[in-house]
């Protein structure tokens, strides 16, 4: 009996040094794990620490392996599985370019308003919307834009943080 595949959001604190991202990505490709989304940026300049958020999927045994393997990397300080831990918030940002005229153009603006997407660039024939929220919300928005002249999407991938007052 195969165990069910789960989706997990994992946050890492890592030394912000050359090659650290390659180590993380190399681990996933080398061992055949999935990466669905990955974000990375420095979060503590004085300590040169970066935070990597990644979304992966696998059976519970695979997820445990992924965490143990990540923990084994020398520049990785901390590995936290936000999905199994305390409640957390996940957000993603997307820039969505829609080109069109007339009624479709108006409709896209109306939907953007419902989704609280902002217009960050406009020409007579196009808009760029900025939208943030859960990945599901982004997907829903993008789907609605498709028939209205969707031409380009750029997404950040998931960033996540635990609720409450304690740090990672």
């Amino acid at each position: 009996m195969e165990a069910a595949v789960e989706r997990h959001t994992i946050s890492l604190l890592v030394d912000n040094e050359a090659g650290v991202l390659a180590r993380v990505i190399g681990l996933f490709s080398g061992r055949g794990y999935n990466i669905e989304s990955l974000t990375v940026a420095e979060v503590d300049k004085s300590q040169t620490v970066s935070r990597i958020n990644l979304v992966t999927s696998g059976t519970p045994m695979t997820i445990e392996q992924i965490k143990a393997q990540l923990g084994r990397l020398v520049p990785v300080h901390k590995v936290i599985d936000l999905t199994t831990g305390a409640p957390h918030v996940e957000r993603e940002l997307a820039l969505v370019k829609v080109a069109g005229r007339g009624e479709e153009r108006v409709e896209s603006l109306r939907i953007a308003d419902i989704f609280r997407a902002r217009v960050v660039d406009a020409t007579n024939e196009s808009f760029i919307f900025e939208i943030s929220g859960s990945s599901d919300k982004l997907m829903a928005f993008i789907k609605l834009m498709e028939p209205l002249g969707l031409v380009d999407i750029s997404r950040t991938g998931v960033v996540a943080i635990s609720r409450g007052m304690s740090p990672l």
Partner: protein
Amino acid sequence: MDETLSQTGSEILIQALLDQGVDVLFGYPGGAVLPIYDALFQQNELRHILVRHEAGAVHAGEGYARSTGKVGSVLVTSGPGATNIVTGLADALMDSVPLVCLTGQVPTAMIGNDAFQEADTVGITRPCTKHNYLVKNIDDLARIVHEAYYVARSGRPGPVVVDLPKDVLIATGRYVGPANVEHRTYRPSIKAEPERVAPAVDLMARAKRPLFYTGGGIINSGPRACDLLTELVRLSGYPITNTLMGLGGYPASDGQFLGMLGMHGTYEANMAMAECDVMIAVGARFDDRVTGRLSDFSKGSTKIHVDIDPSSINKNVAVDFPIVGDAASVLEDMIALWKEKRVSSKRDGLAEWWRQIDAWRAKDCLSYEQKGEVIKPQYAIQRLYELTKGRDVYFTTEVGQHQMWAAQFLKFETPKHWITSGGLGTMGFGFPAAMGVQVAHPDALVIDVAGEASFLMNMQELSTISQYRLPVKVFIVNNQYMGMVRQWQEFFHGGRYSESYMDSLPDFVKLAESFGVTGLRVERPDEVDDAIRRMIDTDGAVLLDVRVSPEENVFPMIPGGAAHYEMKLGPDGAAMGGREEDGMVLV
């Protein structure tokens, strides 16, 4: 302070190595590392052994490390020098061998420009090292070298590469000592949580059909772990089996030892594994060569697994009692709890279990018949064991049938005397490794049990052992085949011996002699003992070409993808259950 400021990168490097206790480097020069060779020339504390191929350097470093427990040190140049050590790095990573490999690199300003002898060493070696570094600034050099040794030896040991651009070696800077150099965050856990150990010991005490299953982790943890393991096994009266990497972790002559388990393990060890109710795994990693078909692996047992590396636990086999910690530390805790409990080793169920084990043992699964005019490989290796028993002897091996016979017929009472490429199975490992062992133990008897095909892969090191007068003995079990390949072709590929015959072999005696090494040959069973004695008694290096029967197979064998109870015991033993397809898929 002025003086420390005026040191060059190469001088800083050598100072750091000395402060890390390094006494020997195995290396090979080239343009990018000339400044280091220049600095080496001007000092005489650090010894350098000039190998004949960088592959030899890294395996020699492994031999040194595996036989001493200290970090092995290797120095090679950029580009081809660095790529030539990749196999050895992968080998050391698989078998958790502490190594620091210093690689030359083109000057920082030229990195990325496809400069002469440039290779992305850090990129190439990332997946086959525990960690690696590119030193971009002279101010980081000493710290990184100290850190590299710390990372290589601590926790689950492994190989570390330090890539050294030539400009950094020439620049001047300040030396910092090793005191307090610990990695910022890398802290492997040593002591297990007590609440994890106690229930495991409770379970052990209630076991009816227990089995200890221990691996290279015991050896790596150190002699204390081996002593503690022996103490706990004897206190409990339980049987124990070792993996290929774990041999020597428990005295092989002891009655509680069932021999090696796995694909070519003993019948009693594998059957005990299949039938046990409590498995106590320590420093072993449930490798596919040990488990056979996973779905049938020791199905009825409750499993305790002690390992210093959390990623080894629940990787292939789900266990019930995971314990993360150093083997010695956890065994010590287990012994204390065991003594508190006053568990009797004379419990009823246990005697029953031993009766069963003795019945399995009675099969005498390693038996073979030496008859006729041709030497059986098993006989040659068994005689080698008998005639070297009691000496200060280290064995290395190449990879193939001879390696498995060596694991079956050589018996180890103490750790670190059995040096073999387990995880990667690297042909060409044993001879340079023996060289490294001999450098670390100049007065010991060091023997490479070799296959003729494997030996050809790094035989250039004959020149090295000749130069340094290293009295390594090469014991070639010459079956004129890539025997292990031939065996698999016989079993799984309809006897089509595709490219496994070793045509055009050299005259090994003449070959040895051309390097100034004594060459001997033996072809008759009744001359084997004399030949081995001559090999041992001859001063200096000896190559002994033992001509053995070409088509012998290694038994017992659990074909890849089969279960432990589907073991094939001998040429006329039970069929293997027609698992040919599965066997073909597995390596």
